[in-house]
């Protein structure tokens, strides 16, 4: 049988790949997708634990994470569309108004 650690290690790697995507890409859509990737890796962790510990709570949590991710994706994409309308770009290097 596969030890739990393997699943956790896979999840960690997927998470890190997501982090790279968030920090290094300029396109806002790609950044969003990397965030989804990170959320999924967390889902994997939760499901793995739930299976190995015999507790359904993990999977219920995943259910809610899924829901929230969906809501967040919807709203976030709406923001990007609004941003695109104003600035004609989704290059986040050019969006630097969140400062003092």
């Amino acid at each position: 049988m596969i030890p739990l650690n393997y699943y956790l290690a896979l999840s960690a790697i997927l998470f890190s790949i997501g982090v790279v995507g968030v920090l290094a890409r300029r396109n806002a859509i790609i950044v969003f997708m990397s965030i989804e990737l990170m959320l999924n890796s967390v889902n994997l962790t939760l499901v793995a634990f739930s299976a190995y510990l015999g507790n359904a709570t993990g999977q219920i949590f995943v259910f809610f994470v899924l829901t929230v991710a969906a809501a967040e994706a919807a709203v976030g994409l709406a923001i990007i569309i609004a941003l695109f309308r104003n600035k004609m770009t989704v290059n986040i290097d050019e969006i630097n108004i969140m400062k003092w």
Partner: protein
Amino acid sequence: MSIDTIVFLILAAASIISAILVITRRSPIISVVYLVFNFIILAIIYLTLHAQFIAVIQVIVYAGAIMVLFLFVVMLLNFAKEEMLTEKVTYKKRIAIGLAVVMSVQIIIGISTSFGEHPNQLSPVATQIGTVEHIGKVLFTQYLLPFEITSILLLAAIIGAVVLAKKRIG
């Protein structure tokens, strides 16, 4: 090397490769496609963990709804082709990759040295808790309140999305 391990390794490799491809492609549409592929691989992994409900939900909601939404937006905004991650590796990208590597190493070390032994096998009740029946039972009894609140959250999200993306008149 049992069959389980081989299957797991194949699936793991596929998901990692597809994840890397997501973040390194030049065209956003290709990235979306690879992300869908990654989600499906993950759903298969969930199946190996006997989490049937979650696997199906993953495919329907994530791969089916969310990624379609992404695709719509990508096509709506009609991007020009953008640079790949591997082109012109600036210091920003180097730092990002470096940090991510360090973080993953740390997490793996943390996992392996953490207190308590982690179970080496699937729990005996794993097959039962992943069923739709069981999940439904737990969801509507123990976690009813979060369930209802989530529906309000979704309502807020819908309204928010509509308001934000609306074209202003005048």
